């Protein structure tokens, strides 16, 4: 079912990469040789065989043959997400994603997912701040049909007033479920709203409640016509495919769509922050929660690689710093971690978070998180620890590549927010990061003046009252 996807943890990296043979496929390569695009070797670069094309209508195409099973993942990525929305109209990208399942002239309402599932496939879609993506995964024999269906709904969606109103209700339920009734999600939403004042990353992907309620069919139609164009999309196919035949199908099906007007690009830039910002959420909840974010650069800046390793040193695995200190040794936190995504369209946030154990306080968690930041700023990360985080990144990378879907997702996401070839440059650059880099970057970005702190303050801590069991009555 359509759902929001919190941008997944960014891709990993690795020592092993240095041992690999790079089999060509430089960016912008106009044609391909099927021989060069053979199955990647077992220890090889999982993207060695990527074939890239740009259709005449501007649509980007990335194909990767991976014949381990007779399966394929077919994904269409649009460069549109909540970053493209405006005040008062938030949530439009996500609502559009839902409406994309409402059918076309050729494939009526409810037909789309049924056709996919009938063949044993699954399909879904997700919206982020930077992109909206649609996918089908399943038997490779279905690929041509899926192309025809996606191409059809890229330009031919039919949404009635009634369908719009129903889906608006569904999305309001989704918002209640995800945020209104979840105190920690609510806190994270407040923190983003405080950390960004000029950039659209300030609002939630799903949109503000009242915005969702007031969106109209006309809003949707204008948005759809603006962004659902081949020249604003990337097609990704990974799986058991014949490259020549697939490329022929792609040209026939997607190539038949006319190029649309160039969609506008958001231009907002978040200005520098001067001084710590704090938000407090007082709600019914059992335990407090602390979230701490800092403005940091994304993939466009070389410091992103050190930030990536800092996040792993802080929170990947049970030997990580936050686990060892806050959870294991000091028995302060039920949960603690750090998070950073370098593959975002605009500069992102470096987050630390923690939830105190009962009897401990939010202030203690905050002090402990700040203590770990200070340690990174004053002591260089040792050689063994640096090697460890690089090893963890390597393994995480291959673990992610175990899934066809994720391989496609990485290509689609990178191509949409940056360029897919970043996947191949990433590792050598990460290997070059030194202990001194980590110390410098922690000292530069993770400072109070660049920080927003959010605290969830539980309004009451008594458990909900549960009634005894008693027989009810039948309903009609």
């Amino acid at each position: 079912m359509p759902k929001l996807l919190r941008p997944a943890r960014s891709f990993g990296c690795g020592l092993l990469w240095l041992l690999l043979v790079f089999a060509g496929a430089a960016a912008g390569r106009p044609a391909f040789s099927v021989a060069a695009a053979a199955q990647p070797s077992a220890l090889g670069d999982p993207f060695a065989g990527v074939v890239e094309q740009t259709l005449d209508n501007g649509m980007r195409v990335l194909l990767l043959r991976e014949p381990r099973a007779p399966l394929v993942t077919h994904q269409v990525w649009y460069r549109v997400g909540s970053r493209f929305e405006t005040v008062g109209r938030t949530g439009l990208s996500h609502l559009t994603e839902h409406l994309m399942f409402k059918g076309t002239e050729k494939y009526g309402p409810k037909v789309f997912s049924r056709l996919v599932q009938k063949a044993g496939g699954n399909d879904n879609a997700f919206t982020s701040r930077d992109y909206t993506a649609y996918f089908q995964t399943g038997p490779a024999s279905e690929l041509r049909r899926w192309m025809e269906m996606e191409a059809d709904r890229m330009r031919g969606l039919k949404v009635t007033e009634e369908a719009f109103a129903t889906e608006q209700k569904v999305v309001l339920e989704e918002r209640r479920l995800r945020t209104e009734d979840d105190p920690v999600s609510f806190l994270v939403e407040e923190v983003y709203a405080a950390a960004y004042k000029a950039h659209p990353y300030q609002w939630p992907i799903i949109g503000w409640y009242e915005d969702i309620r007031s969106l109209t069919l006309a809003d949707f139609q204008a948005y759809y016509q603006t962004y659902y164009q081949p020249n604003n999309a990337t097609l990704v196919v990974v799986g058991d495919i014949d490259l020549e035949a697939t490329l022929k199908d792609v040209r026939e099906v997607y190539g038949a769509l006319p190029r649309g007007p160039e969609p506008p690009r958001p231009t907002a830039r978040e200005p520098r922050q001067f001084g710590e910002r704090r938000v407090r959420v007082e709600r019914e909840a059992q335990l407090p929660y602390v979230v701490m974010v800092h403005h940091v650069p994304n993939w466009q800046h070389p410091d992103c690689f050190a930030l990536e390793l800092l996040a792993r040193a802080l929170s990947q695995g049970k030997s990580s710093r936050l686990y060892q200190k806050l959870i294991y040794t000091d028995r302060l936190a039920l949960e603690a971690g750090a998070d950073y995504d370098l593959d975002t369209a605009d500069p992102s946030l470096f987050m630390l978070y923690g939830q105190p154990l009962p009897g401990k306080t939010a202030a203690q968690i905050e002090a402990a998180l700040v203590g770990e930041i200070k340690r990174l700023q004053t002591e260089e990360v040792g050689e063994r620890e640096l090697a460890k985080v690089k090893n963890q990144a390597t393994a995480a990378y291959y673990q992610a590549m175990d899934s066809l879907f994720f391989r496609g997702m990485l290509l689609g996401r990178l191509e949409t927010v940056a360029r897919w070839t970043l996947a191949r440059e990433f590792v050598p650059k990460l290997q070059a990061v030194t202990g001194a880099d980590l110390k410098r970057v922690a000292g530069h970005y993770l400072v109070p003046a660049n920080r927003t702190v959010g605290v969830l303050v539980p309004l009451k801590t008594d458990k909900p009252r549960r009634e005894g069991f008693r027989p009810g009555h039948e309903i009609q």
Partner: protein
Amino acid sequence: MWTSAARILLSLLAVVWIHFPGPSAAAGPPPLGEREVLPNGLVWLFSEQRSVPLVAVNLLLKAGALRDPRGREGLAHLTALLLTQGTKKRTATQMAEEIDFLGAKLSAGAEEDYAMVSLTVLKKDVGQGLELMADAVLNPTFPPQELRRKVQQLLASFDSDEDEPMVIARRAFDQRLYGQHPYAFPPKGTPQGLKAIQRQQVVEFHRHLYRPNNAILSVVGDISREEARELILKYFGGWSPGRIPELTLPPLPPLSRPETQVIDKKITQANILWGHLGITRQNPDFYAFQVMNYILGGGGFASRLMDTIRETRGLAYSVGSTFEPGLEPGPFYISLETKTENAGEAVALILKEVERLRAEPVSDTELADAKSYLIGSFPRRLDATGKRAALMAYVEFYGLGLDYPGRYAEIIQGVTAADVLRVAQQYLHPERYLLVVAGDRNRLPRLPGLVAAQEEKEKDDAEN
């Protein structure tokens, strides 16, 4: 090559399974992998998968929460969690550091029916990974301070669970449905049970149940069978077998009429859970039940519940039906979250769909679509090393046989509309069910099924 003993064993198993309507061995998809029993009784399963340089290893132990003694709920899970928290060779911190240095993942925990220790490791580190895994499984020391630490963390997690209404609803649902039976409690236990557990009980639990003749090991990935076998023999060959205590379980309490339970929380949605007991995994009706469940609410957008409740009326973001067949009859339930005021309408629609399924046969299209989905989606259950390793262990545990993929397709193909109608009538009970609603009691609509709860509330209000 397999040993001749293993070959004989495999052929014996084939005889045992002969009552299943299966295709000939040559016709269907290839078996999931190979199977061998070590002299100490350890069943190990193997499948070579070379597409990524990883090896996934799963060790399933017949030591799940079903083995929790009454009053010590959480013992099985706690024992599994403590495997990596100190061994004869390593402290908890040393073990964490060594696992992380390899970039490996080693995790352990218990489900209802079994405990599972899982390892994912780069092929180049597979020897070190297995050594760590074996150390955790064979030599845990259960240090008292680590036990206290884990219990403290688990106790705190019950607090944070209170902020997840569906989790709370599910807990109340299971407790009523299962009474004194271990399925009444989540595998992580209960606060009372965890507080009562003594270290010696953990030691005994491990000593009795963590035995090779009570375990299934599956190895999948970028490794040859010979290499894998050598490593398995090296690290698990010396594991000594033991006598496995009998498992005795209390009877399940009856549910003879509709019962409603409201859990008051100041939230905007009603979190609704409707259902009753389901079936065991060994029940021959499993397959017809699965087809029925797909059509009712297991099939996402292809299901009747999603169509009625979400697509037509926009009442919920998600609605579905689930059955959790285990060694014992797991629950069957329908769940959804909807705006508090719509709770009654949603429950009425659930009942209507359940009754319809019992009253009239499903259409030919629905039946054909469900069957083709279930058969066609099977390969996706095997498309990653970790998934394959887990499925192999599951198939062995429930006695389904490594030729399961082929037989599965055959059995599903044979399910008829009459079978679906029969299982709906036999196993779905719109006249005796349990309804749990977590939500804002003051704003829940006054509806027949909720009358008792409402009256109770008004009584409370009068008293306060």
